[in-house]
């Protein structure tokens, strides 16, 4: 018996396997930490843009506020409306949170590294390098809509149902522009693997001072369209119709409380991180720095985190700056402006790629 | 024990007959449409398995086309269901017996 299990034991105790297990835990808990930091950042940025102080009592500069929020949510009572569909009511937040975490598995966040010589061979800083990575992110993000739609339907309340209906229509509409914006980066990178697309953006002109390799430049409108569609996909202001609080109380999560509400909350912030991370990898050169500095992988990861943080700040900034659209304006904008622009962008980028190659 | 093409063909046959049975037996138009989707997917599985067996991508290309046809079918079918439901407030196929209203 030990002989038969020998390959399995060897596999499980090899440094590479252990490194990947640690890596996946880093991603998982990193995302949770990111969500906690984002909650605080959102409140602080909101406060600054409204000339208030924001949370400042719990810990220095309100730094422990996320922990206080989590403890509060944990100790709240879990309520379920009597007319709700039992299974779907509890399945909905689970789907939301699971898809949010799962989409991040294929996203790379740093160059290959052997962790200062700890490992016999370099590993990729990402959960899994898949050769259809971009499509997997797209597929899992499109599954996220079920969490919201089911929450809306299973609650059996009119506000929730309206929120669910709105979100299904909105996410279907903006998914097309989202996919076409991704397609422009796929065409430029000549690959479906996120890591290969990032590595295709290395080249820099003028002695490496300018980041000319970034796909932001050839597909500038692709980036803009991606960010707009990404904001709509994650249901953030100014496109937060599924939960528009002035019209629908809280939309699809009106009836949720305690931890099931917390899961929706977590999913929203993790989806923001995912959209920003994909934008960084596809359009902003990932971990590649404009200046040709060989400062190692840690610097690359830091650089990647800086870019993602900037995009996340942009997200929060949008929310507290722009008013919500009207629903028909959202549909008109999505179908009559954003989608044609995305199609045109893909055609132009593809023509450019053919012309210059 | 090794997987052969026939394993996949058998599975796809089972799925196809489940779909057929659904179309025959159910009296809810939405479930009937869902059963048609099951049948389409059973055929897709056959195409992919056969394409893999013969080392050709043609099977996957056909699946790609079947998916677009399925999307068109679902859009038109659901539009029909909505307009039928508006007239009779029911989803049972037995209710729609008149050719014109």
């Amino acid at each position, binding site marked *: 018996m030990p002989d038969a299990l020998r390959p399995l034991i060897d596999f499980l105790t090899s440094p590479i396997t252990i490194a990947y297990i640690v890596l996946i835990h880093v991603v998982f808990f990193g995302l949770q930490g990111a969500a906690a930091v984002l909650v605080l950042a959102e409140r602080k940025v909101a406060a600054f843009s409204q000339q208030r102080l924001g949370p400042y009592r719990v810990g220095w500069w309100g730094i422990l506020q996320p922990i206080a929020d989590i403890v509060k949510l944990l100790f709240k009572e879990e309520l379920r409306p009597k007319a709700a569909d039992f299974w779907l009511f509890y399945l909905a937040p689970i789907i939301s949170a699971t898809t949010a975490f799962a989409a991040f598995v294929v996203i790379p966040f740093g160059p290959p590294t052997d962790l200062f010589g700890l490992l016999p061979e370099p590993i990729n800083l990402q959960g899994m390098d898949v050769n259809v990575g971009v499509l997997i992110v797209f*597929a899992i993000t499109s599954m996220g809509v079920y969490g919201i739609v089911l929450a809306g339907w299973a609650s059996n309340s009119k506000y929730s149902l309206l929120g669910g209906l709105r979100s299904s229509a909105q996410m279907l509409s903006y998914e097309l522009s989202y996919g076409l914006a991704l397609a422009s980066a796929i065409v430029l990178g000549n690959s479906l693997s996120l890591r290969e697309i990032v590595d295709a953006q290395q080249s820099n002109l003028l002695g490496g001072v300018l980041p000319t390799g970034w796909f932001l430049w050839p597909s500038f409108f692709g980036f803009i369209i991606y960010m707009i569609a990404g904001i709509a996909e994650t249901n953030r202001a100014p496109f937060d119709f599924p939960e528009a609080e002035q019209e629908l109380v809280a939309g699809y999560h009106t009836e949720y409380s305690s931890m099931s509400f917390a899961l929706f909350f977590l999913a929203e912030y993790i989806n923001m991180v995912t959209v920003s991370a994909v934008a960084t990898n596809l359009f902003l050169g990932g971990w590649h720095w404009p200046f040709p500095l060989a400062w190692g992988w840690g610097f690359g990861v830091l650089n990647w985190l800086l870019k993602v943080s900037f995009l996340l700040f942009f997200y929060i900034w949008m929310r507290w700056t722009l008013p919500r659209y009207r629903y028909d304006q959202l549909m008109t904008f999505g179908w009559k402006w954003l989608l044609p622009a995305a199609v045109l962008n893909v055609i132009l980028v593809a023509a450019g790629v053919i012309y210059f190659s | 024990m090794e997987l052969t093409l*026939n394993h996949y063909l058998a599975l796809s046959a089972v799925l196809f007959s489940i779909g*057929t049975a*659904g179309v025959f037996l159910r009296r*809810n138009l*939405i479930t009937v449409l869902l059963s048609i989707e*099951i049948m389409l997917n059973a055929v897709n599985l056959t195409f992919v398995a056969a394409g893999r067996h013969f080392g050709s991508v043609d099977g996957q290309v056909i*699946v790609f086309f079947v998916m677009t046809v399925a999307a068109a079918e679902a859009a038109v079918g659901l539009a029909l269901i909505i*307009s039928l439901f508006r007239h009779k407030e029911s989803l049972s196929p037995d209710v729609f017996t008149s050719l014109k209203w």
Partner: protein
Amino acid sequence: MIPLDVVLFYLFGGAAVACSLAVVAQRNPMHSVLLLIASFAALAGLYINLDSPFTAVTQIIVYAGAIMVLFLFVVMLLNTPREDVASPYGPAYVTLTSGPRKAYAVLSVILLVELALAVRQFVSTSAPSGPAAAAHVSSVKAIGIAIFTDYSLAFEATSVLILVAMVGAVVLAKKKL
């Protein structure tokens, strides 16, 4: 030791069959739609087992992500859960007393038996496909080249089909044009 692909085949295949059966047996259309999504996800797993990751992802994006959302949207819009239970036109299922539909029930049983017999005859005849075929089949590039060269006419025809379907759906479902 059982190879991994055999385990995955029975896992995903069993899930697909179980979910499809539940779709047909389910009275609540909402649950039917969700079980069908689970069945499609299982099929996507089978496609990955068949070295076709592109088709697997397309299955999730197109079927689970778009077509089924449309179904969900209509079920929510009509909001008729368990509609067929209280129907004045008899029970939701075909029973042995339900007139002409008895024939359909018999037909579907015959179909199932026939398919089982047909499959049994072939079970040991075909050889397993080797890994040599896998590299070509799993390449997204090869699929793209096939679609835009050999099948370009069909591809263009599909775009017309989609346009027709779109116009048709709007005409059918809109109250007042």
